[in-house]
């Protein structure tokens, strides 16, 4: 087994195991904390895929910001008082069946399709190259995200604030 394979399977195991904790833990705080290793495992997968910059952003945004936001909301709403409550609705069985069906479909699709690579050598994905792409080809998407960020900031503030 090559180093890449070992790394892939180890990262996949970390991600999936912590994902299972996120999905199944009866304690919502444990779920939120288990998100951190799940995100870090995905970060490792990005690195295996030569996407260094995306990996750095993943840690900064997901592990460092979104998790904090989620933990804050848990502490602001139910805190530890939700421990005794039922965390799963009555759709457990149906949900499992649907999830398994979707998994079978996706995996079948992924394994049976033959992907033909386009010609071209692997680009070096430095931050600089990503910057070139954002300021060149993808300029509209780049400026568009600023509008999305502005709108979601305003919307979230309006929703979260008390009505005066």
């Amino acid at each position: 087994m090559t180093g890449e394979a070992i790394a892939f399977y180890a990262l996949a195991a970390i991600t999936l195991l912590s994902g299972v904790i996120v999905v199944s833990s009866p304690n919502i705080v444990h779920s939120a904390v288990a998100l951190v290793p799940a995100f870090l495992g995905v970060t490792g997968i990005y690195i295996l895929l030569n996407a260094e910059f995306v990996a750095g952003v993943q840690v900064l945004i997901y592990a460092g910001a979104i998790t904090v936001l989620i933990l804050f909301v848990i502490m602001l709403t139910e805190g530890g008082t939700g421990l005794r409550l039922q965390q799963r609705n009555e759709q457990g069985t149906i949900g499992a069946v649907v999830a398994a069906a979707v998994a079978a479909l996706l995996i079948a699709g992924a394994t049976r399709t033959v992907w033909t690579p386009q010609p071209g050598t692997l680009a070096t994905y430095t931050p600089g190259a990503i910057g070139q792409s954002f300021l060149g080809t993808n300029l509209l998407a780049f400026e568009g995200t600023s509008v999305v960020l502005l709108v979601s900031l305003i919307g979230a503030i309006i929703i979260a604030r008390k009505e005066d």
Partner: protein
Amino acid sequence: MLLDWGYVAVFAMVGSGMIALPLLVIWLISPRSAYPQKLETYESGVPTIGQAWSQFNVRYYLFSLVFVVFDVEIIYLYPWAVVGRQLGPFAFYEILIFLVILTLGLVYAWRKGALEWV
């Protein structure tokens, strides 16, 4: 490049081992003389009242909300900063539009009092 990150992975793994080592040592050698009072939550010496896990004020959320939006904005500035010099004035005007739009968000949050600790 993968070699670099292999180093980082080794750093993280060996590092966690080195942090866990003193914990193992104290688990082996530390004295154990637990009696119930010692295991109580510290509350300035008086008996503990209730759980700490209760609800907190929404203002913490507003700050972390504005933080998340600005943190996301900042990730776009890193690649821009690296190539800015090569691209010249064009890059500057592009980012100026981006920053002006987001500064509107900061101004809005400021005016609406989302940045006030009340």
